[in-house]
């Protein structure tokens, strides 16, 4: 299965790589030509588009909200960790997991005593720009083609943002205790202003990224799970990167699948509904404390 997504940015994308001085710098990928082009990592897309939304759906559908242990929460939402010193390969447990949880068959994860490999490959988000033309043509499906005219250069789509964190004691002075009073500029006892200006780079709204998901040997349930997770991610705002609470990182995504997808999502939802109790039992058993010998 090969799903290709065309994601238009509808708000500034702030998928950051780090900080230089006081400015946050966006994640860039170096091309063979030596140029650095903004990108979104496959790891981030895999987590935000599939794992987080898919796991949240499972928790709600299985009625596990407020019932999970920390290892179960970590297993579902970030893949979990191998915590036991004695590793095992319990083939029945793996087979049951693959039958019950298409999401985890795609993404894999780590139980306390064994690592389960996944099948999903999430490609990184390629910015639709002239520098990426050859890479884009390799990724796009046959039905989609790049315009013959020159695409915009990557740097033309990079902008900046700046915010100011205000001083609440200045805006609400009546709520401040006497010893914490600040002067008119919002400065504390040390005379320094508490106000903070922060800024960084972003990919401007109106740009677009192409990214994809490849899952060899996938079933209709796998496709249904993946598409369902993508739909939930879009419904929740379709965000990637940081500052989503400020409205950043929103993507509007169009999906192309190279296999028939009719009814796949419904089949996945039915599957989860039908196997509800089995799924809960499996999760409970997989994370049950081992009895002392």
């Amino acid at each position, binding site marked *: 299965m090969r799903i290709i997504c065309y994601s238009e940015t509808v708000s500034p994308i702030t998928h950051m*790589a780090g900080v230089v001085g006081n400015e946050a710098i966006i994640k860039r*990928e*170096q*091309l*063979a030509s*030596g140029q650095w082009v903004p990108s979104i*990592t*496959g*790891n981030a897309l*895999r987590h935000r588009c599939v794992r987080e939304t898919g796991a*949240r759906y499972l*928790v709600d559908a299985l009625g*596990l*909200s*407020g*019932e*999970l*242990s*920390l*290892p179960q*929460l*970590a297993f579902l*939402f*970030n*893949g979990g*960790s*191998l*915590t036991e010193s004695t*590793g095992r*390969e319990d083939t029945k447990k793996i087979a049951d997991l693959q039958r019950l949880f298409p999401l985890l068959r795609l993404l*894999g994860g780590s139980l306390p005593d064994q690592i389960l490999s*996944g099948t*999903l*490959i*999430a*490609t*990184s988000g390629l910015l639709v720009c002239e520098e990426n033309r050859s*890479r884009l043509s*390799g*990724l796009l499906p046959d039905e989609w083609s790049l315009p013959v005219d020159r695409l915009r250069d990557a740097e033309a789509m990079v902008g900046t943002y700046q915010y100011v964190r205000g001083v609440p004691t200045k805006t609400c002075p009546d709520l401040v205790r006497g010893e914490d009073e600040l002067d008119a500029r919002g400065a504390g006892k040390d005379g320094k202003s508490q106000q903070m200006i922060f800024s960084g780079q972003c990919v401007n709204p109106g740009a677009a990224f192409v*990214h994809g998901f*490849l899952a*060899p040997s996938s079933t209709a349930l796998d496709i249904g799970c993946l598409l369902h997770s993508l739909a939930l991610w879009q419904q929740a705002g379709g965000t990637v990167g940081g500052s989503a609470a400020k409205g950043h990182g929103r993507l509007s995504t169009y999906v192309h699948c190279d296999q028939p997808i009719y009814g796949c999502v419904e089949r996945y939802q039915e599957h989860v509904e039908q196997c509800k109790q089995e799924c809960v039992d499996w999760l409970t058993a997989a994370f049950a404390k081992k009895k002392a010998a």
Partner: protein
Amino acid sequence: MRNLKVTAHLAAPLAGDAPQLDALLIYKQSLHHNCDRAWPAPRQEKGCIPLAREWLGDWYVFRSSSPVVGPCSESVDHYTRRTPVEHASLLAANKRTVVATGNSWTKSYRLPLRIRNVDRVVWFVVGEGSPLRKILKRTASIGKKTSFGYGLVSRWTVEEVEHDWSWFADAVLMRPLPLASLPDGIIGWRRDFGACVPPYWHPERYTEIVTPC
């Protein structure tokens, strides 16, 4: 068996190192057979892949060169993980404990990853082209962190070539070989302690070897 040049045309940067082709093929052919450091290594004769092999002393070595990666720009990427505390409300009331983010299994991390911007990786082998293509067709990516999209292979090509460069390209060493079996006059090698037959990571395969440098 013919002299072949196998090329992986990459659609994404390569993370970590490219694999030995014999190891990759054996892995693909035995995906559901487990192997572990704690268990004895499988017999060397096991592993049915369409590459020629020869005994060199105690080692049954495949006629396959190490991966050849051309000059390329390099960078460092990072991958991160942290405990999903933003979903703490999903925890059972009696499981809402303090999470250590600096140690234990809940430790957050931001780990570096060596990235190479190569457009192709090449191996020289002696083997059978058609079955080789069939196995390689099932290989979507190579290197580390392939689930993040690194090392994505857009296509594999297998071409016949005139020379056999699987072990030596003229007098230059092309793959790890046992030190004791190194012919005179070979250049481009250094001594090492490691494996020259798959599984390359298994301690029982370790011996005195020479590797290309």
